[in-house]
């Protein structure tokens, strides 16, 4: 992987992934909303790696800007070998009920805008006839649960979209990876009490690194979530609706 593009570069998982792969890259483009954080991250990645590092300040939730972003990106790095889409926010489910506008804004951030961005990226990869599009979904996308179904629904939309895109991209030799992390200890989840099911961002980044290299389709990380979610998906609805999950 020579040219790496990270969208949502200041997220905990993105940073852990960069720590792992930065010194294998030649060109790195980091995109995020906060100029301040991006500058701090840019210095770090430039120190770690001999790659040329470019930072672009963009609000990725704004799909109207995606075209402009893509032209900036291709102008900066030429071909994209790997694009990691790793931005989003954990939706406050309780707030959604009383504030539908907030729910829609969150759905756009975690769902619709990612679909738009994935389309722009896959079009570019088709043009190149190569490359990887890796998108962070969530185990929450596997089944709507009462504790976070607004977040889960957005991730679910992204994952259905990616499943189709992956199949569509077969003929273009473009690799599409859906990443489904479980509980990850990052700033996004800093207010949660951590337990045995929690993984570090570094562990998740290591799994992502392997999945991208091996051109996997769907990655559950850590691995045991595949089985936890399998059980959750198998529970009949008449029982499931009564479970406090």
């Amino acid at each position, binding site marked *: 992987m020579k040219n790496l593009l990270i969208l949502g570069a200041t997220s905990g998982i993105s940073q852990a992934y960069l720590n792992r792969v930065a010194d294998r890259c030649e060109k790195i483009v980091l995109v995020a909303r906060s100029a301040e954080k991006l500058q*701090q991250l840019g210095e770090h990645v430039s120190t770690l790696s001999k790659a040329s590092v470019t930072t672009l300040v963009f609000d990725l939730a704004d799909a109207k800007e995606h075209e402009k972003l893509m032209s900036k990106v291709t102008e900066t790095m030429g071909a994209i070998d790997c694009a990691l889409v790793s931005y989003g926010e954990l939706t406050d489910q309780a707030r959604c009920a009383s504030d539908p506008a907030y729910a829609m804004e969150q759905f756009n951030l975690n769902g619709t805008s990612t679909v738009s961005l994935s389309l722009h990226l896959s079009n570019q990869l088709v043009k190149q006839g190569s490359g990887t599009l890796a998108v962070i979904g969530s185990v929450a996308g596997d089944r709507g649960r009462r504790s976070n179904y607004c977040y889960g629904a957005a991730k679910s939309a992204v994952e259905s979209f990616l499943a189709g895109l992956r199949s569509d991209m077969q003929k273009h030799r473009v690799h599409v990876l859906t990443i489904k992390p479980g509980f990850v200890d990052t*700033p996004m989840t800093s207010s949660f009490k951590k337990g045995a099911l*929690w993984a570090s961002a570094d562990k998740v980044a290591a799994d992502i690194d392997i999945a991208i290299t091996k051109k996997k389709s769907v990655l559950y990380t850590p691995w045991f979530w595949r089985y936890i979610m399998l059980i959750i998906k198998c529970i009949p609805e008449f029982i499931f609706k009564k479970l406090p999950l």
Partner: protein
Amino acid sequence: MSGLLSCNMNDSWGNVCQPRQVQSTLNWRTDVLPAADKKLVVGNRRSYGDVCINDGGAIIDATGLNRFISFDKATGLVRCEAGVTLWQVAKLVVPHGWFLPVTPGTGFVTVAGAVANDVHGKNHHVAGSFGCFVKKFQLRRSNGDELLCSESENADFFAATIGGLGLTGFIGWVELALKPIEQSKMAVESVSYSTYEEFLALSGESEKTHEYCVSWIDCLDKSGRGVFFRGNHADEGGLDADLDTSKRSVPAVVGAGFPLVNRLSVNLFNAAYIRAHSGNRQYTETIAKFFYPLDSLLNWNRIYGRKGFYQFQCVVPQENTEILTEAFARISAANQGSFLSVLKTMGTITSPALLSFCRPGVTLAIDFPNRGNKTRQLLLALEELVMQAGGAIYPAKDATMSAATFEKSFPKLAEYTQFVDPAFTSSFWQRVNT
């Protein structure tokens, strides 16, 4: 069940404090320091006792500040955020022919933690402590001041913050002078000895020829048998970062249960260890294996079970080291102690720190499984011995020393206290600042 499943991320490495503290995190250099009036910023919490604990106050985790700011490959100056670990530094700089000028026995400590505890390593006799290599840092005070500290700028805060136990404010970033190396492998020699006098003789002779010296000692053996390790950077082998150790981990279930450390297991381990290192052996090994042997077993502190363990580390002046023989006798008689007991001589090079633990003499470090009152009484007896000998106890390892002992151990304490940030405190500080 929830006790078994949830990890105690809250406590220090010894797991004896079990604090109640309000947790928050710092993830970016531009994040605002929480306004709490009793706060403490901590890194990876590898201190054993309560210097990284703030019972009843706010604990601010700065491990998210783990980015480098710059690294000059020509001059070996590295600048990084507070929460960067020594492992991270080593991985970055070794392939370019640089290494940490001083490193303790684990690479999981953060750079700011190493500054705040003025840590030392196997090369203390020739290099001094970590603080000797700190060129500059940013100190953020609770009143909003951001001080650049170095030997020439805010030199008073510089001296108070190195070894200052994190109480003078929050160390935002650190600039460190690295040490050039030609090769990344270590040429090591192990020599077994059977008495404490032999250890002293070996130390004296090895310190002239070897940059790194340390010794493992059988704490249950009254005569003082042990194994002396001495090493230099090797003459060949290239600059290989080869810093990936196997990452096995002691499962959480062990940490929630009974200690695996008892008289029988310690005796068996010590006998096997002596046998494995009998005579004199020479070999080369990686930096990771030589400096951080325990880092390949993650969460090794869990072998001490639910109740955790105490560590005791003291330094006593060279002329009074007979007190250590007495200490071994007490430990053996009390049937305490563990696998890991370390003995090393310290040299005369001092850092700018007002509160540095490091001083010329012999330092001894021993783990004790927490057996409640019995263990605390032994620690008290050892503390008294150290005070009689005019020595000092290491705050980074300590959970029990008295205010009087702390004051006697650190003659510049009154000067230091003026620089303590009024909104910062720790369980350690509440205990010793009376």
